[in-house]
């Protein structure tokens, strides 16, 4: 990696699964932590169902907004059938977070919050304070969705700590 200490996270899935929302929250959390951050994805089609992948890079200084193949530290995949098409972005030893990680989750998880629960899992691999994550979730979702998604985030975190 050219710039020291830049963390690369790819979030992938299908249109309508909240991929872009999840990457907005991650980027906002890094931003609130005072880091440089760049986030990039190709979007624009309203139609549902196509593949979406969003790159988030953060650290002391970030140049390119795109993550090079084989250089992602973490890959989150919201749709199980999109794991294989995205695996190539991970570096050797990189962390893959997929809905499988939520199999033994304590309590019920609404389908709409899977993206946020996966961020909870991711958060245990990153150095960002929980309070910042919660602020970022609240800032990027309508108030009526706060409770549900903060709970989903906590459930995701608990998977790794349990």
């Amino acid at each position, binding site marked *: 990696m*050219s710039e020291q200490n830049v963390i690369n996270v790819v979030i992938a899935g299908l249109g309508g699964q909240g991929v872009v929302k999840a990457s907005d929250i991650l*980027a906002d959390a890094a931003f609130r932590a005072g880091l440089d951050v760049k986030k990039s994805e*190709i979007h*624009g*089609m309203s139609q549902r169902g196509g593949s979406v992948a969003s790159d988030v890079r953060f650290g002391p200084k*970030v140049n*390119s907004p795109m993550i090079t193949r084989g250089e992602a530290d973490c890959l989150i995949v919201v749709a199980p059938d999109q794991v294989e098409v995205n695996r190539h972005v991970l570096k050797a030893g990189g962390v893959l977070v997929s809905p499988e990680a939520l199999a033994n989750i304590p309590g019920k998880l609404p389908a709409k919050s899977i993206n946020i629960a996966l961020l909870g899992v991711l958060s245990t691999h990153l150095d960002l304070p929980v309070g910042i994550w919660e602020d970022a979730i609240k800032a990027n979702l309508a108030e009526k969705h706060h409770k549900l998604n903060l709970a989903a985030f906590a459930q995701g975190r608990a998977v790794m700590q349990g």
Partner: protein
Amino acid sequence: MAKQLQARMLLSGDEAVALAALNAGVLLGTGYPGTPSTEILEAFGALGGKAQWAPNEKVALEVGLGAAFGGARALVTMKHVGVNVAADVLFTAAYTGVTGGLILVSADDPGMASSQNEQDNRHYARAAGVIMLEPADSQQAYDFTGAGFAISEQFGLPVILRMTTRVCHSKSIVEQKPLPQPAAAPSFQRDIPARVMIPAHARPAHRRLRDKLAQVAAYAESCAQTLVEPRGKALGIITSGITAMHVRDAAPEASVLQLGVSYPLPLNAIREFVASVERCLVIEEGDPILVTELLAAGLKVEGKSERFRFGELNVDRVRRIIARDESEEAPAPRGKPPMLCEGCSHRPVFETLRDLNCIVAGDIGCYTLGVLPPFSAMDTCVCMGASITVGLGLRHVLPEAEARRVVSVIGDSTFMHSGLTGLAEMVYNPPATGHVVMILDNGTTAMTGQQEHPGTGRDLRHEPTHKINFEEVCRAMGLKQVVTVDPLAGDGALATTVSAALASGELAVIVARRPCILAAPKIRQYDKAAAEKLLARNAACSAAVTE
């Protein structure tokens, strides 16, 4: 938006342009939707700027030019292919020049994430003779927009702010700095030789333009947008736009010259940079424009090989260009393509056209997805508006049995954009077998994220305004057969209507009307809000009358 007040923000390139335009005192923002430019005007409107959708890009640039003639700052936005539509305005606006600052945002789409071609609009700056600025991230999008208005006014020329998909849609940090030179108040100063382009005025105007460009080139030699980063002597890289960011990652030891003003070129600064390094590469996304010009100027620079002309560049590809690595690149794994939504009103239209074995001259919008299985019911798609006219061309030349199967399919926003002249052609030069045009009116510009247009009766902010009635327009233009159907009625009316129109051998327009299912809930909301407003106004009026 409270965001406006923060000093440090995480913004997309599009949002950064909108914020800078607001801070620069832009009095009018206009454009036509097109990925990846659409969010600029939406954000400008949300911030409180006066933002409006034009029916098409030519109209938008003309309205913007008028505002700039009046001494105001104006922002005009479009995607790369929109500049083709506005090109007629652009080339002569370069001659007339402007009084208030005029920025035309051209949002290019290398790699064609959401476009029908990957034309490189850096050519337009050269062809028309206008200034081009190319930001590499959101901070530069903010800074260059602010500087762009001042530069436009200083030299009296339109500025093209060339963005690309990665700059428009990537988010990065923006520090809200104060902008140079505030906007002046608009007022009309008569200047006939400058603004009335009869040949006697245009001849000297062309010479004036070339003089201005020489002055801009001199300015660019040392301006804040010409970024020289001396590092190692072994390798120097000349670049512009997003590529500058990939370059900094791919070759952290290399010296970099980022040309923020990418036309006209600061040749002395470039010459000096080339002389300061042992090997000098020009790394540019898209066509080999810079390298060709620098080689023509006699500079010792290397370009990239032809394979890197196609698609976006990224850090990996920049490393390959530097290493002269010509090995095959691993193809990107194919993801899942988008599809027409379940319940989309376009679906039954393409099922019908498929079942009737029609030859379909298509157009651009969500409905272009009618080309994919299970429909496979589109035979041409070239540019906005071409459905009606390409269909007419086919009708004119095909053997009769084939000609009778030709149908043109156009969306509602596309019809307002460039369908009306096609209808004029149809009634003026009717094919011997007649012709059938279907307007797929789903009440929105769905493809680009549900923008309003003159046929929806709502403005950019979704407030009520005059609504153009398609059926009345068609009849006024001389069409006798104008039929409206609900494609989702499920009563067989759609298939019967299309069959009857085809069999008639006359000219026919079928309006297939049913709101886009994603937009429908919002449309109901806008209608409800408008009705409530009207009711309140009427109540206030009758109260005033009775007093």
